[in-house]
């Protein structure tokens, strides 16, 4: 079995899906000859040419809007938004159009399309190259939102996303592109959308996370294990539709729930998890449902001291776990 970086898994998957299905195209800014600013599409233009690997003008709304139209006419577009921070010009096309097309047409129109975007901080990207945008889109019925944390999941989930009959937002933590490696089988496996994974079984505290935070949660589980705290890590993998069964099953077993996310704390994705756990696992709880999340400032500041201050890390998560364990 080959060991791949996170971005290699994504690049391989794009190429393989394009070979498998000639209706799959890639479009976005700098995705062609350059292969994308992170090189996620490197080599695709050379193999598949101008028609299927399209360098667009700097027009995010058009990238998504034209993907919607192309999806109506026999194409499976995989659009790249260069940074998740730049997705907002396409917000209307995603929320008013892509998310609602099937519902508003009573199932007459469906949009098999994927929008990929790198997100997240810790890479000296400051306010406009570090954002987490998943909460905006997870709020919207009609959009599927995926955030993988391993090369294996990236491959299996991206295959599922591209083959899905509805719009999928596929967010990739940019700090993981080259820092995360893992085994990826050569087989045509998929990871189904809407299924979380228990990546570290434990008995005393459930830690729920996704993306880079799923790695930090695993690291932290090992740190606190030395202190005798048994943590179960749930990697959500798909934020919407949410795998409530796995989340609630774990919390009912451990009785304690900590949710970790990098986005601003207030109304972040973890707020919905907290609400669901409070509503549906109340009788099983031995402590308050708690959150470790980014501070409520409008963006990640640039200076490295300030960025460190912003970012959730294993130390901060460990402090939260100890506090909750002692409750």
């Amino acid at each position, binding site marked *: 079995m080959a060991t791949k970086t996170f971005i290699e898994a994504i690049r391989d998957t794009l190429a393989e899906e394009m070979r498998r299905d000639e209706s799959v195209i890639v479009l976005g800014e700098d995705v062609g000859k350059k292969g994308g600013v992170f090189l996620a599409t490197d080599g695709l233009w050379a193999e598949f040419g101008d028609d299927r690997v399209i360098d667009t003008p700097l027009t995010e709304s058009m990238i998504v809007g034209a993907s919607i*139209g192309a999806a109506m006419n026999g194409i499976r577009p995989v659009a790249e938004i260069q940074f998740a921070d730049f997705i907002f010009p396409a917000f209307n096309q995603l929320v008013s159009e892509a998310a609602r097309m099937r519902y508003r047409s009573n199932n007459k129109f469906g949009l098999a399309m994927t929008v990929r975007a790198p997100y997240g901080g810790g890479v000296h990207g400051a306010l406009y190259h570090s954002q987490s945008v998943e909460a905006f889109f997870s709020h919207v019925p009609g959009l599927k939102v995926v955030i993988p944390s391993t090369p294996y999941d990236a491959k299996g989930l991206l295959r599922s996303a591209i083959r899905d009959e509805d719009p999928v937002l596929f967010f990739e933590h940019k700090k993981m592109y080259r820092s995360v490696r893992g085994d990826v089988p050569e087989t045509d496996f998929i990871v189904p959308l809407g299924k979380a994974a228990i990546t570290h079984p434990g008995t005393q505290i459930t830690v729920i996370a996704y993306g880079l935070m799923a790695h930090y949660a695993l690291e932290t589980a090992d740190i606190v294990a030395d202190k005798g705290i048994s943590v179960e890590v749930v990697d959500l993998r798909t934020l919407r539709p949410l795998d409530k069964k796995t989340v609630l099953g774990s919390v009912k077993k451990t009785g304690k729930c900590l949710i970790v996310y990098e986005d601003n704390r207030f109304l972040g994705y973890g707020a919905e998890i907290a609400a669901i756990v409070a509503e549906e696992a109340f009788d099983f709880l031995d402590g308050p449902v708690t959150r470790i999340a980014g501070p409520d400032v409008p963006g990640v500041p640039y200076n490295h001291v300030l960025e460190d201050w912003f970012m959730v890390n294993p130390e901060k998560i460990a402090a939260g776990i100890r506090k909750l364990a002692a409750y």
Partner: protein
Amino acid sequence: MATKAKPPTGAGSKTAGRSDLAASVDLTDDDLIRMYKTVALARAVDERMWVLNRAGRIPFVISGQGHEGAQVGIAWPMDPKLDWFAPFYRSIATCLTFGMTARDILTAQYAKAIDRSSGGRQMPGHYGSIDNHLVSLSSPVATQMLHAVGIALAAKIRKTGQVAMSSLGEGSANQGDVHEGLNFAGVHKLPFILIVENNGYAISVPVSKQLPVKDVAIRAEGYGMPGVVVDGSDVLECYKAAKIAVDRARRGEGSTLIEAKVIRLTGHSSDDQQTKYRDPEELAGLSSKDPVPKFRKQLQEAGVLTDEILARVEAEIKAEVDEATEYSENAADPDPRTAMKWVFAEDWPSETPPSWGFGDGTEGEGHGGPDDTSAAEDAVG
């Protein structure tokens, strides 16, 4: 191309000769009669919508009165079996030209379950039909033109020979999506045509406050495509301009921007009182640009629309509109038990909310339907 897949009108073959007028646009007399019927049917359906609204039968109307001639003339060279159209909320005549019926329009007005556009989910005016290659429409304006651009992109990639057209008002032409879409269509010479139906008003704001130039069409130059202005009250002028653009697009020569100068005969919608911002003299002067009597007179003078044919067409229209009204009035409302359907292609039971009914409105019926009690069992387990 133009004679294919159009709704039959009942106009007999005995009239299918060729007047000078028909010959001048390379159509048959029968084509012209069917065009007239579509224009007049759109007007009749529209007028019926207002009657039903004022009678309290339907809550909302957004009208296409004054736009019908341009819409029929421009959509006529398209092939609804092959090509695609992304219309806007005044596009009743466009939709009829692409094969929707009076019934399809009026069931949407009543928002009945059988409404082909949305099954009663959307406001009236948001028409769409995959069978008729009409893209489902939303309310934020101009978004749909990017969908047509994407359809054209797919047509180019797949080499299907399709043309994609989209229409919007001159107010919507100021949206950023229009710039992004025309620019991309221009770069890639896509088989795409944008129609700007300029009726002079964006709800209440006159064109003098929307545009620093007389015509939207001159913007086409900035996108490397032809920009054409046509008199939207002249059906055949609209047809000719669209035919050139469609043929050009189909030959792979790229996009066109067509601006049709039309009139808006009604308020913006049934909730608008246009006398508040339009002078009585202006409104009184509109009738000379009304495409329905103008086209009728043109066809009568050309000897195409005889009294006998006109009487038959008018009787057919009245019967269709009456039947559609009756049908829509009696059709069933959508069932609320279906309202969770089609968020996605498949059901999504993993998010089923708790069903113990703490005022969340689900009252024991989860997303997975009345039989899905798994979450409730889990929750109280």
